C-alpha cells in the first residue's frame, strides 16, 4: 500500500437529531467522454445512533492507506480524480454530498530509494461549504 491519508470532517449547522446517517468514503472516479467509472477505496458509515455518541460539531478523523494506483490523470478523453466524499442523510429525506479532491501522484524524488514504493498524496487545504455541511481539511499523515 501507499502512504496514509487522514481527513477530518465536522457538521456545523445541524443537530444530530436531524441527521439519519453520514457516509465518508475515499474514492476515485473518471471524467471525460466515456461512461463514468467509480471505485470506493475506503468507506465508513455512521448511523444516527452512532452520531449521538459524539459531538458532530467537533472534527472527526477518517484515515486510510492509499493504494499505489490508479494515479491521478489528466488526459484528453479521460481524467481520473481522487476525492474524499462525505454524504449526509437528513431526516427530511434529502441527502447532501460534499467532496474534497486530492491528487494521487507518484513521488518521483524517491525512485530507487526504499521509499519508492509509496505514493505521495497531496490534499489541498480546502474548506468546502455546501448547505449546512462542512468538510474540513485533509492532510497527509
Amino acid at each position, binding site marked *: *500500500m501507499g502512504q496514509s491519508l487522514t481527513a477530518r470532517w465536522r457538521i456545523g449547522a445541524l443537530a444530530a437529531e436531524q441527521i439519519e446517517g453520514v457516509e465518508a468514503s475515499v474514492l476515485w472516479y*473518471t471524467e*471525460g*467522454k*466515456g*461512461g*463514468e*467509472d467509480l*471505485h470506493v477505496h475506503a468507506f465508513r458509515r455512521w448511523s444516527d445512533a452512532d452520531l449521538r455518541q459524539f459531538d458532530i460539531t467537533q472534527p472527526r478523523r477518517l484515515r486510510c492507506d492509499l*493504494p*499505489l*494506483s*490508479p*494515479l491521478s*490523470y489528466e*488526459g*484528453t*478523453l*479521460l481524467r*481520473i480524480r481522487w476525492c474524499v466524499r462525505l454524504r449526509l442523510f437528513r431526516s427530511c429525506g434529502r441527502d447532501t454530498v460534499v467532496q474534497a479532491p486530492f491528487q494521487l501522484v*507518484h513521488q*518521483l524524488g*524517491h*525512485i*530507487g530509494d526504499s521509499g*519508492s*514504493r509509496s*505514493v505521495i498524496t497531496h490534499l489541498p487545504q480546502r474548506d468546502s461549504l455546501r448547505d449546512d455541511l462542512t468538510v474540513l481539511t485533509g492532510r497527509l499523515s
Partner: protein
Amino acid sequence: MRLPKPWTKKRGSRMLGGAFVGAIGEAMLLAGLFLLGVFTVALMLVQRFAAGSFVVRGGLPEGIISEEASSSTLGFWIVVVLGISLLALGGGGLIYRLLRVGASDERRSAMASRAAAMAPSRPIASDLVPLPSIPQGRGVTDSPGLHQAYRLAADGSNDARAVAAAASLALLWNATWFVLLAVVVSGFLIGSPRWVLCFLLLPFAGIGWWAFRYFLDALKKSAGVGNTIVEISDHPLQAGEGYKLFIRQAGKLKLRRLRIELVCDEESTYRQGTDLRIDRHRAYDQIIHTERDLSIDPHHPWEQELTVCLPVDVMHSFQSAHNAVCWKITVSGEARPWPSFCRSFPVVVHPPAGPPIRHPR
C-alpha cells in the same frame, strides 16, 4: 518462367511452389467445392420440391424428370448427401484454412496451451500484485522468446477479421447465385424458362466475381505480409526504465517504410443512443525505429534489436469498465504491392518503481 505442374515427383519437405501460392490455391479449391455443393443441393431440392409448380405451369416434358426422380428415391438422397458433404468439406476446410493464415505454429501452440490452462484454479497469493485498476497482463508473459525473455502476443488481428468478412460475403453471395442458377437451369430443363431471372444472373455474377476478387485480395494481403514477432527483455514495463526489443518481420515485401513505435492510447467507451461507441486518443507516441526502402525475402526476414526507454512521468496502464489507458508496441509498414499494415502488441506499464515484479521465468 516455369509453369507449375499439377503433379510431380515427391520432394520430401521441400516445396515445389511458395507457401503463399499454395494457400491461395487451397482456398480456391475449397471455395469451389463449397459452391459445387450448393449448386448440387439446390438443383436437387428444386427438382424435387418445385417440380409440382412447374407441372402446374407448363407441364413436364416426358423423360426430363421421371416420376422416380421426383419421388423419394435412393438416388435423390445419395446426391443430396453428396452435395451436403461437398458443402461441409468446402466450407469447413475454408474456415480452417483461413484460421491458419497469419498465425505461426508457435502462436497456435501457445493458444492451445493457454486454453488447456484455463481450468478454474485459485490464484496463488504471491501472484497477486497490489496494483488496482492496472491489468495484470498475464497473457503477455505466456510465451517465452528466443532472443529476449518474452514474446509479445499480437492484438486481435484485423487482417483475419477482414479475410473472414470477405470470405463470408463472397461465399454467401456466390452460393445464392448458384441457387438461382439451379432454378434457371431447372426451368430450361422442364421447358419453362425464367428469362427475367436468367438475365438477372449476369449482373449478379459480376457482383459475385467482385466479391470473390475482394476475398482473394484480402487473403493475399493477410498471407503475403507475413508474421511479425516482437520480443521484450522484461515485462511488465515500468516508467523510467529501459528495455531491449527484438523485432522480426517475415513475408515477401518491399516496404517504403517500416516503423516501430511505443504508443499510449486513451480509450473511452460510451453510449450514443442504442449504440456502444469507443473513442481513442493517442496520448503518447515514441518512435523507436524507422527504416525506409527495404526488401524482405521469405528466407531472410527483417530482424532488429532495439532499445526502448519509457519516460518517468508517463501514465501507467489503466483499465476500468468504460475507460482505459493502453500501452502497446506497434509495427507498421507501408508496403507494396500489398496495402499498408499495422500490428499492435499490448504491454502493461506500471507506475515508476511500483511493487516488486514477479518474474515467471
